[in-house]
């Protein structure tokens, strides 16, 4: 039982840190940091989706540019998030945007694009050709085909792409603290610098929680948004990542 002693003491410290009202107020308080993190992530995700969704859907609908769509994903995987952040820093400086929010934002947008674009492309491409033929035979115009057949059928995989992007963005927004951004990464980076393990641990706990909540939220969104008929035909193993 001797080894459990320090762990219990440490967890008690963490609990005390969390219960301290000073840590729940002001510009370094938990609500402020969570707000900053969510705001930065949501804004970056929205911009990434606004760029990647139309391109991915257009490519998937027309069936052209598959090479581009797949390679964007591969490049995205090879580029480490810390490297993207590092590249964003000189860009933000060249544009006179300074430290903090903007370099992180500039890094997060390209990070979110590959998973959204690739999933949208694959989802549209994988819609059963017979269904599209049937729709065309029933006299649907091209835009009707897209809106009434392809998009509803492709929606689960499209949403999975947005979800993967969201989780990656929430994770990397944490690293933004290295370039003086706000958000929950502050607790981790400051905790490391000040050697305050309780602050560090609480920050890590909150970041992990936020990432898991993001993942779950998109799961719920998918359940609400996807038509019940489509959901039934999709096998359980289709949780494409």
């Amino acid at each position, binding site marked *: 039982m001797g080894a459990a002693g320090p762990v219990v003491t440490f967890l008690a410290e963490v609990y005390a840190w969390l219960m301290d009202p000073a840590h729940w107020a002001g510009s370094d308080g938990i609500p402020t940091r969570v707000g900053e993190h969510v705001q930065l992530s949501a804004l970056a995700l929205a911009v990434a989706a606004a760029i990647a969704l139309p391109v991915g859907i257009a490519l998937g609908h027309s069936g052209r540019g598959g090479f581009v769509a797949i390679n964007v994903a591969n490049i995205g995987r*090879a580029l480490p*998030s*810390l490297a993207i952040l590092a*590249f964003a820093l000189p860009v933000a400086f060249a544009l006179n945007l300074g430290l903090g929010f903007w370099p992180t934002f500039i890094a997060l947008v390209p990070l979110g694009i590959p998973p959204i674009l690739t999933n949208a492309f694959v989802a549209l491409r994988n819609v059963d050709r017979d269904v599209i033929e049937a729709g065309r035979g029933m006299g649907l115009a091209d835009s009707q085909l897209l809106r009434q057949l392809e998009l509803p059928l492709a929606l689960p995989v499209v949403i999975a792409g947005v979800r993967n992007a969201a989780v990656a963005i929430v994770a990397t927004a944490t690293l933004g603290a290295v370039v003086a951004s706000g958000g929950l990464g502050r607790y*981790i980076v400051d905790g490391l610098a000040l050697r305050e393990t309780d602050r560090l641990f609480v920050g890590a706990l909150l970041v992990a929680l936020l990432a898991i909540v993001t993942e779950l939220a998109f799961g719920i969104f998918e359940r609400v948004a996807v038509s019940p008929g489509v959901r039934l035909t999709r096998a359980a193993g289709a949780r494409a990542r």
Partner: protein
Amino acid sequence: MTPGEPLIRWDWVQSHLPDIAQRIGEHLLLAGIAVGVGFALSFVASLFIARRPWLYPPVSWVFGVLYTIPSLALFSLLIPFTGLSILTAEIGLVSYTLLILIRNIVGGLRGVPAEVRDAALGMGYTQRQLLFRVELPLALAVIVAGIRVAAVTTIGLTTVTALIGQGGLGFFILEGILFFFSTPLIVGAVLSVVLAILVDGALVAVERRATPWARLGRS
């Protein structure tokens, strides 16, 4: 980043060549251990799952949660217990390989056609022979695809371990950010991408060698 400074100072690169070589070595070691240990764990887990398929959903759920937790957060959650050590870095890095690898190993094994399995059993293969002579060779392409994704992802993530005092090429990126000096930043970032591409290419070459029948067949 400082006005009047070039984006890359080649004299810095030249004078730091031994340093750069050392960091590349560290980077490969950190990522290599992680993928190796991750593969060993996933492989053993997959063999259990092959015998008891009901284990797959809970195991992949646990690995999925680990995969969702951001890397810096996972490292930080470990620091109070394992310190700023290589062990902390490796536990984190290994955790991320598990979901990718187990999906491909289990998926590859499950993709072996039932007729092939029946034929092998009919020819008198034992379970062990079936696994090593029939199922694993046929699943190899999918398994190697998983190792490629795991290796590329891990090489990228290894840069983050610089924040917890481990080196690798992330050290240069961090140095560049902290001192507003773009040369090490670009050196670290570019080399880690190049490393990922090279390792990916090497794994493709290994796969070609290991599956000579793939070239003879349909493709």
